[in-house]
């Protein structure tokens, strides 16, 4: 039962990664692309946690935490670049 749920969840999150990639490639404005990158990062966190459940290994939590940190810092830096045209003044 858990195996089947994990398979379904992998499929659904793969589909959502494809949708976010579509918005990343197509997005008419730069802020759309930043939002798509942020969503891709959050979906990758979900995928990592699911893979940790499937492998029954707790080694993936640090990776997921690191990915969420880097995703937040990256989104903040890109937003600051969009707002100011510069990241570190």
């Amino acid at each position: 039962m858990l195996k089947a749920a994990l398979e379904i969840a992998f499929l659904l999150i793969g589909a959502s990664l494809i949708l976010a990639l579509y918005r990343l490639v197509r997005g008419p404005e730069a802020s759309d692309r930043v939002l798509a990158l942020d969503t891709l990062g959050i979906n990758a966190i979900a995928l990592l946690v699911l893979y940790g459940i499937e492998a029954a290994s707790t080694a993936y939590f640090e990776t997921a935490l690191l990915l969420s940190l880097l995703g937040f810092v990256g989104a903040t830096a890109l937003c600051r670049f969009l707002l100011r045209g510069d990241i570190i003044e």
Partner: protein
Amino acid sequence: MNPVSEALVAVLIVVGALFVLLGAIGLARLPDFLTRLHGPTKATTLGVGTILLASAIFFSQTAETGLSLHELAILFFLFITAPISAHLLAKAALHRRPPAGEIHPAAGPELAPESSTQDAKTRGKDTGGADTVGPPAPGRCSGGAGAEL
């Protein structure tokens, strides 16, 4: 692992993945940037939160160290940072809008026919759809909003 908590973990995983997919569909399909911002920042955060909750239950049941609280760190971090990055993105999008005085399409009743992100799929089957009548306005933020003025 006892079957009740296994069923609970399975249900939480599927529900969380559905929420993640819902956020991504909102990101890909909604017409305007601010509505697109609204989709993933709520639904995806909730979906990842549900999946992390499922993971916490799973590892609390299986790991020999007892209660597993690693996921709560990720969960709190996501719940704190997701609104901040959404706020910054909204600020950036408002900053790059055309200046006041020009009528933004989202301000009037012409929001529904106006879809700046009309993708190729809806354009392909655009035979009688009332919501895709207007021409795509690609240069909204670059001062090209004169199409409806």
